[in-house]
């Protein structure tokens, strides 16, 4: 393989570039990124970056020394618009093409939008530019903020807005946020965190319309209420960036379909991170984006799937001063047992708790609030037991 092109100068794209070099690829390495920025870390955008505790320098995932060592051609601010049927040519939107022997797809996902969200004051939070724009708006004195969507981005952003002194309402269409992730019982406990900083949580109603002519003035709900708003943050999920692959030979269905080893329908094309549906699962987790590239690159360089990327899913969220951590594969009907700490009045106790999801006497997943040490132990047990239950070669 003489040329490998990484499409997406993202967390997983950068990790793939590092793995290529670490695993001995010494050919031409091209990294294409549609954003003008070198790779940066997204999790702080809704937290420390928004509140001003962290600056842009702290988001950087790489530095000059490492960039020099990678010896890559960086094509930043340029969007890939196509991959030919053989997977040997990447088409760029400036008209150029890159001939390549291997491709790593790491184009991530984009924030899902709402109709009418072009009004001033309406934001999504996915990219550095999104976060910059929102941060500017949040430093102009107290605002009435409505966050649409009570998932992790919504909850973290609401938490940051509340910490900055804004009046915050979160609108969630489901009866509770995070039910698909945590199950109803624990979702209710975590939803109670909103109360810690006085954020109002409105559930079971959807957004009918955004009001305003130039700038947003309010959010109309499906029950007829209108919430006055100066700032609206739309946090209703993300869609994998696969549009540029239409016309390629790759199978696309809510992501790029890959086997357990991140290999697509073409053996010299692999996919990693938020855009990749690996073995039937598309996990928008930071940890997946950092773990998949090692396996994907090994398989890319081998020319076939020699390794599986199946790991125990893990994600975390910091909100309202609490740290949530979750690992495992929860199933509907698992029983939930608080193994440490306590739940008080339906909310996490001040010193948190650790809950186990169990099925037939086995732990399927663990959730902790402010119990990092116990969580880490439990997560390791899960990884070990999964290794026993499922042989690595899938």
């Amino acid at each position, binding site marked *: 393989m003489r040329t490998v092109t990484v499409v997406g100068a993202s967390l997983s794209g950068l*990790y793939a570039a*590092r793995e290529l070099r670490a695993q001995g690829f010494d050919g031409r390495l091209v990294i294409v990124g549609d954003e003008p920025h070198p790779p940066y*870390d997204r*999790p*702080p955008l809704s937290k*420390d970056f928004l509140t001003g505790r962290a600056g842009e320098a702290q988001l950087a*995932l790489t*530095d000059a020394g*490492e960039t020099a060592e990678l010896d890559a051609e960086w094509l930043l601010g340029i969007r890939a618009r196509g991959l030919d049927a053989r997977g040997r040519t990447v088409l760029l939107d400036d008209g150029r093409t890159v001939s390549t022997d291997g491709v790593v797809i790491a184009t991530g996902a984009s924030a899902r939008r709402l109709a009418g969200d072009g009004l001033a004051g309406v934001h999504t939070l996915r990219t550095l530019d999104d976060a910059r724009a929102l941060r500017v708006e949040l430093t102009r004195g107290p605002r009435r903020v409505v966050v649409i969507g009570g998932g992790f981005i919504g909850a973290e952003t609401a938490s940051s807005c509340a910490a900055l002194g804004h009046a915050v309402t979160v609108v969630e269409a489901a009866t509770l946020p995070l039910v698909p992730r945590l199950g109803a019982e624990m979702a209710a406990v975590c939803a109670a965190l909103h109360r810690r900083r006085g954020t109002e949580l409105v559930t079971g109603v959807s957004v009918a319309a955004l009001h305003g002519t130039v700038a947003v003035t309010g959010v109309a709900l499906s029950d007829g209420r209108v919430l006055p708003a100066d700032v609206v943050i739309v946090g209703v999920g993300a869609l994998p960036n696969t549009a540029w692959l239409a016309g390629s030979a790759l199978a696309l269905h809510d992501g790029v379909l890959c086997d357990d080893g991140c290999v697509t329908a073409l053996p010299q094309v692999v996919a990693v991170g938020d855009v990749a549906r690996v073995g039937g699962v598309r996990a928008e987790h*930071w*940890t997946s984006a*950092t773990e998949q590239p090692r396996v994907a690159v090994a398989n890319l360089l081998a020319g076939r799937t020699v390794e599986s990327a199946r790991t125990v899913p893990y994600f*975390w969220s910091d909100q309202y001063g609490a*740290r949530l*951590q979750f690992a495992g594969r929860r199933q509907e009907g698992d029983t939930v047992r608080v193994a440490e700490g306590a739940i008080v009045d339906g909310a996490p106790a001040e010193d948190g708790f650790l809950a186990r999801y169990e099925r037939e006497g086995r732990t399927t997943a663990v959730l902790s609030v402010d119990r*990092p*040490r116990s*969580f*880490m*132990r439990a997560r*390791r047990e899960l990884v070990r037991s999964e290794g026993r239950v499922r042989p690595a070669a899938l």
Partner: protein
Amino acid sequence: MIPVCRLEDLPEGESVRVGTNPPVAVFRTDDGELYAIDDTCTHQDASLSEGWLEGCLVECPLHAASFDLRTGMPTCLPARRPVRTHRVTVDDGVVHVHLAAEEGSAA
């Protein structure tokens, strides 16, 4: 020199966080050695005293960055910058940390 705890209150394989500014994590390895490093992971805000201790390495509880307790150097991503190390002594059965001179940060 900051007193931390009595040696018998820090069993092998355990760690303790000292609320200095910045906070320090003191570890007693399975071999009985004592080490102290800055407690906050250089990647993102997480307490290394709550990490996973294996030999002379501690793994961050949030993103699995790993540091060598002897040198403070990161041994894997996502951390790229070292943590400061501090000298540890035991005097009359009490563990003490000697903070590294404030000569700028380890970054």
